């Protein structure tokens, strides 16, 4: 090994090996990327394909045009804008309310010590084990019963859907938020308390501004989650005018998928783009959140 030339050869071969391996991995990456983005590319192409049917589509459309978008947005065949608006509205209201509920509750869990505190925190975690989806039948029956008394909160209302979403608000987010609040030093609270500030003042004026970064992330993830939710909306909303975008597109796909593939594709893209953009911009934060969860367990 003391022979310099053989050492150099070894290094050269190692670097060659390294380059080969990088090349091979790049090749695999290309395959994987094709696998990953092909469906998306296919939909983008479909949305610009003027013939608009599933059977005649090619990856690069002949005579690409905006016909499908025009049909989607102006023909009034199905209320795409209403669905889109419903989804945005429901997700926004749910998001704001659920964040308020969880942040205020998490503050109490983090800052006050009271009997039953640990039990409650654990119970909240345990209840999450049972997905809301499972109680679907019961939720449906319950909302229909409530609707017999208050039609405004019954079946086929956005209010009922939002309430059901909010019922799941006190979940894992409480833990996330409490964990974050625990890292904020209590010295801040104490000095404010000495000055005579109330808990509420401390919370709103001192703590809340410090929470802004995590609030933004949770708000966005929540928003995406509600926006993409399907099954509860499908069960609780009955009228086409009340549908969320997910329900609307699913129903549309069930009815006239093959012939109106191009219009459907345009709808999917408009519906998916906001979420995709959010994810890609925030990917470092989201990845951070995921891996933190993974490593902490």
């Amino acid at each position: 090994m003391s022979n310099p030339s053989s050492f150099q050869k070894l290094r050269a071969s190692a670097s060659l090996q390294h380059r080969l391996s990088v090349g091979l991995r790049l090749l695999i990456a290309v395959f994987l990327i094709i696998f990953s983005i092909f469906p998306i590319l296919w939909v983008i192409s479909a949305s610009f394909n003027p013939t608009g049917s599933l059977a005649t589509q090619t990856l690069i459309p002949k005579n690409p045009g905006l016909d499908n978008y025009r049909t989607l947005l102006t023909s009034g065949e199905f209320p795409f804008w209403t669905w889109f608006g419903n989804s945005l509205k429901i997700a926004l209201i749910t998001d704001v309310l659920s964040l308020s509920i969880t942040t205020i509750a998490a503050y109490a869990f983090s800052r006050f010590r009271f009997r039953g505190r640990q039990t409650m925190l654990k119970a909240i975690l345990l209840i999450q084990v049972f997905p809301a989806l499972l109680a679907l039948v019961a939720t449906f029956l319950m909302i229909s019963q409530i609707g017999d008394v208050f039609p405004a909160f019954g079946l086929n209302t956005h209010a009922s859907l939002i309430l059901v979403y909010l019922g799941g608000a006190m979940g894992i987010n409480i833990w996330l938020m409490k964990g974050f609040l625990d890292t904020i030093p209590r010295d801040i609270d104490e000095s404010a308390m000495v000055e005579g500030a109330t808990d509420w003042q401390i919370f709103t004026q001192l703590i809340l501004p410090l929470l802004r970064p995590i609030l933004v992330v949770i708000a966005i993830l929540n928003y995406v989650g509600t926006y993409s939710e399907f099954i509860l909306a499908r069960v609780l909303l009955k009228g086409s005018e009340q549908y969320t975008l997910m329900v609307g597109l699913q129903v549309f796909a069930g009815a006239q998928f093959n012939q109106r593939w191009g219009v459907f594709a345009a709808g999917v893209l408009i519906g998916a783009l906001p979420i995709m953009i959010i994810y890609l911009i925030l990917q470092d934060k989201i990845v951070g959140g995921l891996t933190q969860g993974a490593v902490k367990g």
Partner: protein
Amino acid sequence: MPDSTSQNVMKTKESSTINIWSPLMRLGLLIATDVAAVWFLNRLVSLGYLPLATVIIIITIFVNVVLLRQKAYPIRWMVVGLVLMALFTIYPIFFTVWVSFTNYGEGHLITQEQAVEQILKEKYLPEAGKAYTWTAFKSPQGDYALWLKDAEGNGYLAKKGESLTQPQSGEAGIGELDEKGIPKTIEGYKRLNAIVAATDQNLTEILFGETGTTIQVRSPKEAAELLPKYIYDPDQDAMIDQEKGTLYRNLRGTFTSETGQVLRPGFVETIQFANFKEFFISPALRGPLVRIITWNFAFAFLSLLLNFSLGLVIAIMFNDAHFPFKKLIRSLLIIPYTVPALLTILIWRGMLNPELGVIDRTLESLFGWAPPWFTDQWWAKIAILLINLWLSYPYFMLVCSGALQSIPEDYYAAAQVDGANAWQQFRRITLPLLLVAVGPLLMASFVFNFNNFNLIYIFNAGGPPIASTPTPAGHTDILISYVYNLAFSASRGVDYGFAAAITIVIFFIVGTLTILQFRYTRMWEEVSENV
């Protein structure tokens, strides 16, 4: 860690606790809540929704205690969330249990009281019963009176709850009679013309005359002394037909005669373990159910294995800080994760469409054959696993690459010194450490896929259907999509009770898995340390 110091802080703090809401506001809120709750309860009880009424009572008491007791001050910060959680997350779980012990479903939607009330409304014209022609009068207050004429031409005045009278013109406010012998006016009432009267919905509902011998409008021409067709006998819990004498006994929430005739509507009734018995021992159901459960587990397990493996392989391949285009590759690879799953499942459905979809058209032109993704059960299963792989591997890729970075480099250096090859390093260092880190997520992912309703339902609605089953079921149905079919696809009549019973079985499966998860990962201990 901050707990020990915070405990001390809290002790000094408790005495100086200040309310977030002024007492007056709290009192106003309390009164408003209670008034609303009482009104709501009243309506719920009158509709027979007792389980919901019970939970409203509990919640109302809880809110009162929290708002009134000084010691409950911290709970006030979370009361809204707790109430919503109790009502929309916890109560449905209990309600599911209750429903699973009942025959709740099509034809059994109301309480027995309501069903009896509806059946008792049915009337019949006894052979000896008297029929009249009628003319209606209406007062400005909305009260009705009838002028009846029997076959002999005698005129009678009938009002609700009063016995029939036979007044002459000029008596009791009766005005002049017209050529048919009907008074033109009655004091305090206005005569309705025949068409208005015939289309008046209220009129047919009113029982004129005294209880026992009531007269009801039966048709635009005729009013008759009708008797209730059925009488309810609480001792036998049965309906007795007054006309024919038939006895209809309560059989699982439907009044049924010996010959099998039934009275509609039926009602909700507890049927003990019948739903569960059906689930476990009904031979007709066993075939599809065994298949569904087997596939359910196979699907969850295979999905997890495939998705995690691919994610891990990719994470390891690119776990190299100097890899070219690393960021770009990652951005492109997580794209499937960024599109709402429902939309991509629909896209896949289009792409896999036989004959029309791009994948089948391409395969067809290359090999002259393409898999029947929707009509063959095995190809349908492969398609579902493939789509799920596409949907989920980015998640595992992200999670695994995070976890890989947390494994200290020293371990690998030490292994290299000991002469371990790459496979041994992976097998002995990477995999065990990784599994510890992502174990809980794997378990959660298994539970998620076990109930992955969206994928199954949207791709093919559980199809292709299993032939000749008593309830609609498909080869790719998992338990939760089967439940959905039972509860919401009305082709054979919905059966909430049975659907709820299956839900309870799923609850148990999920619960068991969670306990295992807690055991295996010691997550609970960690949680206990953190709270």
